[in-house]
């Protein structure tokens, strides 16, 4: 047992830091540090910069344009990324579709999509959830019917993040109603510009437009856009859940958030003294920091185990439960620090220090982290069954 990184790893970390400092645009850094999501153009700009250095998809295998880094390297990369304030752009193409195509895609599918994902040429959105389905994903109703060489898709998807930005959608559709509900599902690639695709914006409680409902009305797509076999889409979806998810605990982001919160509590004067000198507040920060340390080492342990062949499996539920809890707590503490500056809405920096301008919006939207990607309740069920055998 040894807590230290090797000299090579630390050297790697230094190189990453230097590259970021040289290549990260200042306006993106500012938005990232205030917790504001990048718009489409900004995301693509940053994605292409990363791709120019071969860093668009650090988790992909080297053969597909990934980095081939060790677990430690990925960890250090992530740590530097947040330390320098680089945005964590959530590309569904990189995070979700890429691994699916690596495992299940045809050579044609790989050749067509992977390079465009890496270079942020195509924006992919995820069509999983449906109105009324919630955590019961397999009860989905959107139907795809093969007519000649084309699937004809009808139905609706909800919570489609950035569907209004998207060029394409990968989605789960029902191709059969026979057998268990999981058995008739297929994994299909659609074009957002296909006739019959419409997108309805959904404004979230942070007052912003991230989410959408997507309607498919006789949308036609060539059968070559089926990934894996027909009616085997559930296998594809489940594969992603047990696939390594380095970032699920969000340790690096939370470490950076604590550092920023402390700095902010030092410069925020509350009734004559810096907020950090309020013992109650300081203890709350310390408590989260301690909780995060426990999560960080649990994350290390999981990564170490998966590096030596163990699949994270149900343990990743633990990482998600605790990771999102900490993220939400940190957002909550920032709102507490903002005091009355929680009132001004959508007025970045006009009513008070810029740091507080987005604090409440971040807190509000952050509530979603315990809902999507398998709610906290579902994660508990998964652990109860998968680890405890209950």
């Amino acid at each position, binding site marked *: 047992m040894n807590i230290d990184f090797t000299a090579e790893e630390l050297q790697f970390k230094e190189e990453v830091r230097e590259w970021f400092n040289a290549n990260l645009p200042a306006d993106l850094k500012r938005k990232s540090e205030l917790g504001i999501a990048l718009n489409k153009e900004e995301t693509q700009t940053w994605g292409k910069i990363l791709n120019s250095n071969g860093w668009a998809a650090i988790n992909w295998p080297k053969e597909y344009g990934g980095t081939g880094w060790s677990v430690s390297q990925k960890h250090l990369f992530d740590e530097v990324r947040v330390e320098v304030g680089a945005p964590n752009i959530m590309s569904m193409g990189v995070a979700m579709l890429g691994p699916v195509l690596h495992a299940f895609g045809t050579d044609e599918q790989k050749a067509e999509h992977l390079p465009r994902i890496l270079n942020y040429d195509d924006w992919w959105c995820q069509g999983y959830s449906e109105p009324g389905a919630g955590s019961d994903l397999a009860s989905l109703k959107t139907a795809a019917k093969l007519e000649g060489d084309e699937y004809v898709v009808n139905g609706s998807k909800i919570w489609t993040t950035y569907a209004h930005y998207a060029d394409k959608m990968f989605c789960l559709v029902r191709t059969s109603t026979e057998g268990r509900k999981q058995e008739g599902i297929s994994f299909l690639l659609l074009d957002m510009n296909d006739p019959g695709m419409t997108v309805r914006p959904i404004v979230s409680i942070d007052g912003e437009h991230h989410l959408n409902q997507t309607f498919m009305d006789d949308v036609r797509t060539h059968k070559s856009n089926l990934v894996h076999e027909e009616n085997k889409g559930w296998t594809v979806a489940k594969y992603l859940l047990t696939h390594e998810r380095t970032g699920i605990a969000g340790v690096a982001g939370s470490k950076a958030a604590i550092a920023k919160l402390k700095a902010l509590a030092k410069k925020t004067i509350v009734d004559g003294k810096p907020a950090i000198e309020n013992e109650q*507040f300081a203890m709350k920060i310390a408590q989260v920091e301690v909780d995060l340390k426990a999560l960080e080492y649990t994350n290390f342990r999981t990564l170490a185990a998966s590096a030596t062949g163990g699949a994270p499996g149900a343990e990743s539920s633990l990482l998600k439960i605790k990771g999102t809890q900490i993220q939400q707590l940190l957002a909550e503490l920032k709102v507490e620090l903002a005091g009355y500056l929680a*009132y001004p809405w959508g007025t970045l920096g006009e*009513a008070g220090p810029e740091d507080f301008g987005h604090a409440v919006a971040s807190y*509000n939207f952050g*509530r979603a982290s315990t809902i999507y990607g398998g709610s906290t309740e579902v994660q508990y069920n998964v652990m109860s069954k998968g680890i405890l055998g209950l």
Partner: protein
Amino acid sequence: MDFSLSEEQQLIKESVDKFIAKDYVFENRNKILETEDRFSRDLWKQYAELGWLGMALPEEYGGFGGSAVENMLVSEAFGSAMVLEPYLSTVVMAANALVLAGGSEDQKKELVEQIIAGDLLISVAYAEAESGYNLANVSVTANGSGDSYSLNGEKIVVLNAPSADKFIVSARTSGEQSDQSGVSLFLVDANATGVELTSYNTMDGGRGANITFNNASATLLGAEGEGFEVLDQVIDIATAAICAQALGAMNTAFQRTLEYIKTREQFGVPIGTFQVLQHRLVDMFMAVEASRSMVYMVSMSLASDDANERRAAVSSAKAFMGPEARKVAQEAVQIHGGVGMTEELDVGHYFRYLTLFCGTFGSTDYHLKRFAELTQ
């Protein structure tokens, strides 16, 4: 010890509750949100005509002489629908400030009567960028004497300020920045020279502003240097009122969630059949009931002659309800899942409303500490 409402109070409660249930539904509120004021002047006039604005104000000022209990009844109902009209700012805060401040009776009486009639809107400006929740931490200065003072400095997050006709402003006439003595209250015209607003929407759907005073002309309210006790009492009354508002909002959020889990199906059954959700709904229910107890307690305690008794009661209620309100708000969103995250459903609005409650007139920690200091 008596927890029953008088006959008049029962009637008031029924009429306010009925209005809220019938006329202040979510869709109607959304329409009001689209107006520039973000509240309805028509409804405000209607509240005045129904006598709601003067209900808890003294008869000698044109009110109906009700107690804090009447105020509680209105506030809970208003909170249950997140009513946008400036009842808290103008009636609970400004009118009480006028009544409690010493000084010229004629001037005060006229202003309070106008408020009760629905003809005058006043907001109280007390918070500053570095004051935290300490009402004695005042850096806005007032110079002058007699009828002529001028204010300099900045107040932040003055609720309903963009629609207000006047402001009541705490300013320092003597002493150090955190001294309780030397704080005075002033009346300032909204359109006076040297009064400048930076206005914005607020998260709960209202409007607010930061206000800078640049040699703004002001009239002293009450005795110079003795404004702290008045302001402290006003904020205590207002704190009790927002506790009642929060109770109303918590109860609605709880009821919505209870209805939701009874009807929403997943895995082929209503999610209300899951024991974990059942117990969490019980927790929400207990949070609402315990908060109701605290709202009753604090409303009855406001009448106390002992200022420290009043302060301890107020701080205990606010310290208790902050975490309970946050829990109910967070649970309502979490249990609703995706739809709870959207602007389209009212649950998310209650979440925001209750989030603001936690940090208004003192955070949980602030009030817990104030309570501990008063009761050790």
